[in-house]
């Protein structure tokens, strides 16, 4: 154990070590970018490696959760070391944009995705799409009986048989979309009915899907790609759960995006633009489609054959830039006793 006589010596060594660490490796080459990524490493690093291989531009990546990274960029302001911010949802991008920290994405890049999937002011751009689905246990619930209207999951038949993840960002965005489309009163009622119907709450979408697949519950509200992740892990033949897209343009089939913005303060605007362009290119879009099971938004890459075309999904007509008021949504969840 540390004897007090040795403390000064150890402290001196520590200070030297700190200085060495602080001074070493500080030179940032002009051919390098810094990316703050709210997207997990396995879902994006291979694309980044490919980019570096093709262009020789190194990318340093700081991984974190989208909200924390958005808060961090906001605190850093114009001193941010980040050149780019990749967020898992439009809300995270919108918050950084609201502080005026993003510069414009060049118009030729914006033109590569449907205008519904980039910011109104052109300051961030969607890279992939993810769709809300109702996942159902096919043994307990014949396909024809799965609700095609998300409000129907509060029917008495599903008492104690529906799973939600109240703390999950995608679920909260879905509720915000419901408020935008159907109004606050209807959304409050929906949450109240869910709670009264003994809805089961889970920590994340993967746990809901597992519960549906194991027959513990009949229905779950999740994002579409979790089904493919689980199928990939345990084999498609073991999948009792099925994805169902709601059919009447209600928020049950909300399309959200994961996307990217270029920091205004970045000294590497041109390199950053090349990176965004690469994310919209065929290699990256194919990776996101095949490995992450997301909906590609550019380069003419098609979603997996088992998925519908994005244009065929009957998603609500909602501007993603309008989904930033999460506060009221959280208040409603709390009021309903679900959070």
């Amino acid at each position, binding site marked *: 154990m540390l004897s007090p006589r040795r403390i000064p010596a150890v*402290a001196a060594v520590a200070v030297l070590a700190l200085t060495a*660490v*602080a001074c070493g490796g500080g030179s940032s080459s002009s051919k390098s970018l810094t990316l703050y990524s709210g997207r*997990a490493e396995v879902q994006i690093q291979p694309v980044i490696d490919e980019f570096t291989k093709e262009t020789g531009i190194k990318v340093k*990546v700081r991984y974190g959760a989208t909200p*924390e990274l958005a808060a961090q960029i906001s605190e850093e302001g114009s*001193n941010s070391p980040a050149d780019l911010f990749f967020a898992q949802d439009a809300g995270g991008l919108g918050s950084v944009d609201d502080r005026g920290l993003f510069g414009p994405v060049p118009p030729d890049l914006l033109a590569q995705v449907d205008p519904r999937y980039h910011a109104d002011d052109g300051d961030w751009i969607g890279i992939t799409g993810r769709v809300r689905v109702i996942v159902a246990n096919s043994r307990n619930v014949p396909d024809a009986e799965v609700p095609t209207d998300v409000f129907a999951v509060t029917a008495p038949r599903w008492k104690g048989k529906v799973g939600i993840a109240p703390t999950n960002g995608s679920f909260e965005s879905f509720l915000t979309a419901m408020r935008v489309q159907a109004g606050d009163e209807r959304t409050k009622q929906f949450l109240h009915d869910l709670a009264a119907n003994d809805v089961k709450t889970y920590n994340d979408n993967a*746990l809901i899907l597992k519960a549906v697949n194991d027959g513990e519950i009949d229905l779950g509200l999740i994002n579409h790609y979790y089904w493919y992740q689980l199928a990939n892990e345990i084999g498609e033949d073991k999948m009792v759960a099925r994805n169902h897209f709601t059919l009447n343009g209600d928020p049950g089939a909300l399309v959200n995006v994961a996307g990217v913005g270029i920091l205004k303060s970045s000294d590497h605007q041109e390199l950053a633009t090349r990176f965004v362009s690469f994310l919209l290119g065929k290699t990256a879009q194919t990776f996101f489609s095949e490995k992450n099971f997301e909906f590609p938004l550019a380069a003419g890459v098609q979603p997996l054959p088992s998925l519908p075309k994005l244009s065929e999904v009957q998603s609500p007509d909602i501007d993603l830039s309008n989904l930033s008021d999460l506060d009221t949504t959280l208040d409603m969840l709390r009021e309903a006793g679900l959070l």
Partner: protein
Amino acid sequence: MAGAAVAVAALLPVVYLLVRAGEGGWTAVSDTLLTERTGRLLARSLGLATAVTGASAVIGVALAWLTVRCDLPGRRLWRVVAALPLAVPSYVGAFAYVSVFPWLTGFRGAFAALTLLSYPYVFLPVAASLERIDPSFEEVSRSLGNNAAATFRTVTLPQLRPAIATGGLLVFLYCLSDFGAVSILRFDSFTRVIYQSYQSSFDRTPAAVLGCLLLAVTLVVVSAEARTRGRARYYASGPGANRPPRVTRLGRARWWALLVPVTVAVLALGVPFANLVRWLVDSVQADVDLARVWRAAGGSLLASGLGALVTGAAAIPVALLAARHRSRLAAAVERSAYVGHALPGIVVALSLVFFSARYLTSLYQRLPVLVFAYLVLFLPLAVSAVYTSAVQASPALDEVARSLGKRPLAVLRTVTAPLLAPGVAAGTALVFLTCMKELPATLLLGPTGFETLATRVWSATAIGAYGDAAVPSVLLVVAAAVPTWLLSRRLGRQAAT
């Protein structure tokens, strides 16, 4: 002087909170502060912290008594086991509880998880005190005709008061700041709402206002704890007897008494361990990049080691000041050291992002700022350990040395330091293992690309890849168990001398 400098450093997050809270103007502050919800949150958080502190005190004192002062079968082993829950990060523990007992959510879940994982904060100082108490006090009581129970109540327990109070304070503040357990077990505490506030509106004012309120609560609690110390003295006035305390013979009841440490161990260690084993089984299929896990372990050791050394050293002047001087300044310095511990990690991390990105650009996202964050977050762990040593050492020893013509520095080196050594070592070890588990500051302030075991666990669980989380989790718990083991072994050695 040094103490005051440390205190000023520890107060940086406060400056940040005031800046951010002030941004929205008075209306924004009152909008957040004067709501029924804030009142409810305050009541809930204080309720949780009080309940956990009370339960931790009972468990901590009971286990310390049984393992130090009773002839419990295998008490040396149980002494080590009782400290081990400190090695389990709250997010790993809470996840295990909710997987094994899915109904265990909300208040009772948070209460159970936080109590089981944080009672060692009370157990360790109380066990150490029980060994160091001069046995002659108790012998006098017994010789005056008091029975064992009365002696414990009137002589031993009052002597344990500083240890229970400092340990309880750490538990209390930890409950206010913990995010892992309350988020996984879905209990709406201050910290969880502060996090959600960052997540939802991305508006910093409400979070900062709540942070300020949390700060005010902390100062009240810390001051109240200081008042319990009163003017009492805890060192023997004379040379006294340096011999091991007497052991209570429990007779047949000792087998029943054994149920206490066993039950606590099964709940606090068995459940998380079983869950880790399940993850390990899953990970056999996952293809784990072991080289990378080892690099992350190196990162953990480096950052936590530096954090522990710096924090341990910084705690010495603060604790000495608090133990030896009863001035207002000394009190203010010590209390300010506790501020960082009660604030959610994300708030401390963002405050350092704010300062270092602006004024220390060259050090931003380098190790020194991360180490500094650990200092701000965990200083009280070290201060309380050093303080406990400092109050049990009579200042008369220093005075004698001075009167014999020794210079102040020489006194510090030859008299004060050896007396403080056990406390400094304990504090350093405690900070080390707590740094190992730290997440929000490490994610925001670590060098880009720098990984620790905690960040590996996080990145795997964030995408539901629990199999990938198994190996780093196990390493994390094992690595944190080593200093925990040293902490409790120190107890055994002292008893032997």
